[in-house]
């Protein structure tokens, strides 16, 4: 559960408990005051009942006295006395009515009975006073039954009222006890809940913050693989831990990428340096011959000795040859540089590869037949016309043929060409029965400045750029180049070119 939800829930619970307490308090007050009113009423009614009882008793005494006087003395009652006696009876009636005003549901029955018997009693008493001075007066008032009945009724009412007063008092006691208990319980529950909430909140927050702190420290110490585990919270702290983990992931990736980028930049740099060192090396070798022979010839001319014209001419030829080698090397380096920077462009034209092949083989025939090699060529007249860069096609062929001648002694150099029936591509194969290559050598042979063996360049010369250029040209022209070879038996290079490139470069 999220932190916010826990907090909200707990606060809500405390509020509810608080509301219950307040509600209980008000209800208790109301119930108490209600019962108090009823209690007071019961007490007042009791007082009134006592008063009524006293009035009734006084009047009965009075009547009994008067009745005895009348029987024995035959005295008459004065008008004033009679009026005051009647007034007393009316007052008693008033008291009875006032008592009626205080009657509640629970005492209604008792009051009604009291009222009935009282009315009869008071009526008979009124009759007593009215007939008192009559000659025919009979002392019929001695009958005690009505008075006793009324007294009995009054007693019953009083008992009832007392019972109700006690009941009310009990209710008040119980209400107070109940509200007190509820208040105390609510208070204790609130305190307990608040304390528990506080404890868990602190512990939970502490635990999570500690884990975050530990993670941050570990990350700060360079442990990029550290992640916060057991995230059992889907709230803010869980989000924070997840965000921390995501940040760690991103950091790890960014640093890895940075490392990779640096590594590949370093590798590229190292490759550039190696390339430059190799270029420098390759340029210096023919330059050494050019400068050395020139200086030597210069010295010979300065001597007094006669110049051997034949030897002189041969030495000049060596200078020219070295110069041409140098030029070819520079051209190769420029080509590679152009390819690498994407500036090598194709000069597209329609041409017959058969014608180019024939011309190239013818031009190189003296080289190809050197060292006792046999040259065998297909008939190229049946090859289709293709749309591509004829100059580069020729350069590829020159490189492959020179290579074959370089690495073959007393063997066979063969050139085959055909159109692939399935794809329609032009396939040219240059095979030799020369020294061949191992599989490892074949895998690297198209890389820059790689020759099959470090010692190869010393035995056979060459810059180590020719095949790299062939591969780049083939790919640029929409085709491919591959090699198959067995050490000691020879190599076969296959060039595959489309009749028309699928995607013609923009400059074509």
């Amino acid at each position: 559960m999220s932190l916010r939800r826990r907090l909200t829930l707990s606060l809500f619970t405390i509020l509810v408990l608080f509301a219950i307490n307040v509600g209980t308090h008000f209800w208790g007050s109301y119930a108490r005051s209600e019962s108090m009113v009823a209690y007071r009423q019961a007490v007042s009614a009791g007082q009134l009942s006592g008063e009524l009882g006293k009035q009734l008793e006084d009047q009965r005494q009075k009547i009994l006295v008067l009745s005895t006087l009348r029987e024995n003395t035959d005295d008459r009652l004065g008008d004033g006395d009679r009026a005051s006696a009647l007034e007393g009876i009316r007052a008693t009636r008033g008291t009875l009515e006032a008592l009626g005003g205080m009657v509640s549901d629970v005492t209604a029955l008792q009051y009604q009975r009291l009222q009935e018997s009282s009315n009869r009693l008071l009526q008979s008493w009124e009759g007593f006073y009215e007939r008192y001075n009559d000659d025919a007066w009979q002392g019929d008032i001695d009958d005690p039954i009505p008075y006793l009945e009324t007294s009995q009724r009054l007693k019953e009412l009083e008992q009832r009222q007392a019972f109700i007063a006690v009941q009310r008092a009990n209710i008040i006691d119980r209400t107070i006890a109940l509200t007190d208990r509820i208040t105390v319980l609510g208070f204790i529950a609130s305190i307990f809940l608040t304390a528990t909430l506080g404890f868990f909140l602190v512990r939970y927050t502490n635990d999570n913050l500690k884990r975050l702190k530990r993670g941050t420290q570990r990350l700060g110490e360079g442990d990029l693989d550290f992640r916060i585990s057991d995230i059992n919270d889907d709230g803010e702290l869980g989000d924070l831990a997840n965000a921390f983990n995501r940040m760690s992931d991103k950091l790890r990736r960014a640093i890895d990428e940075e490392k990779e980028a640096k590594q590949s930049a370093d590798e590229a740099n190292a490759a550039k340096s190696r390339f430059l060192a190799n270029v420098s090396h390759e340029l210096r070798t023919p330059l050494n011959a050019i400068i050395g022979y020139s200086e030597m010839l210069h010295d010979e001319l300065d001597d007094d000795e006669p110049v051997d014209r034949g030897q002189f001419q041969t030495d000049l030829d060596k200078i020219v040859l070295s110069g041409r080698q140098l030029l070819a090397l520079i051209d190769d380096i420029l080509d590679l540089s152009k390819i690498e920077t994407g500036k090598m462009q194709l000069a597209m034209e329609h041409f017959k590869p058969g014608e180019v092949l024939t011309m190239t083989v013818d031009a190189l025939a003296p080289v190809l037949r050197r060292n006792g090699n046999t040259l065998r060529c297909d008939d190229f007249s049946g090859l289709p016309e293709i749309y591509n860069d004829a100059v580069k096609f020729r350069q590829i062929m020159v490189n492959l043929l020179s290579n074959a001648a370089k690495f073959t002694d007393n063997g066979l150099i063969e050139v085959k060409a055909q159109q692939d029936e399935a794809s329609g591509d032009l396939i040219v194969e240059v095979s030799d029965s020369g020294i061949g290559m191992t599989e490892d050598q074949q895998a690297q042979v198209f890389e820059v400045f790689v020759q099959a063996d470090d010692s190869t360049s010393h035995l056979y010369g060459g810059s180590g750029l020719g095949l790299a250029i062939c591969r780049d040209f083939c790919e640029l022209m929409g085709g491919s180049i591959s090699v198959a070879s067995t050490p000691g038996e020879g190599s076969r290079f296959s060039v595959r070119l489309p009749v028309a490139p699928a995607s013609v470069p923009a400059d074509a």
Partner: protein
Amino acid sequence: MSARLLLVEDNELNRDMLSRRLRRAGFETLIAEDGEKALARITEERPDLVLLDMNLPLVDGWTVCQRVKSDSAVADIPIIALTAHAMAADRDKALAAGCDDYATKPIDFPALLDKINALISP
């Protein structure tokens, strides 16, 4: 009596050119085309000085130099390294292998003669 030099160089043109110039300069010049032949001639003929190309087929110049310098019979023969590698690291590498001096191609011939003379005339 003229000093005897052994020129170890695999490149035909450079070997031809340099050996002829050394002879013209008055040195008796022996020749070897690769590391194996060089080692054989050094032990057999004890030249006064070896001009050693470092990039050699079969056995390279570094190995030749190390073997010569660890063979007490010939360790005293001075060696001048010749290479087309022009980096400072290459020079250090050659000297570390035991070469007495170092010359970069294209060879500055008068400077090379000075180095040879410095090493063969004590």
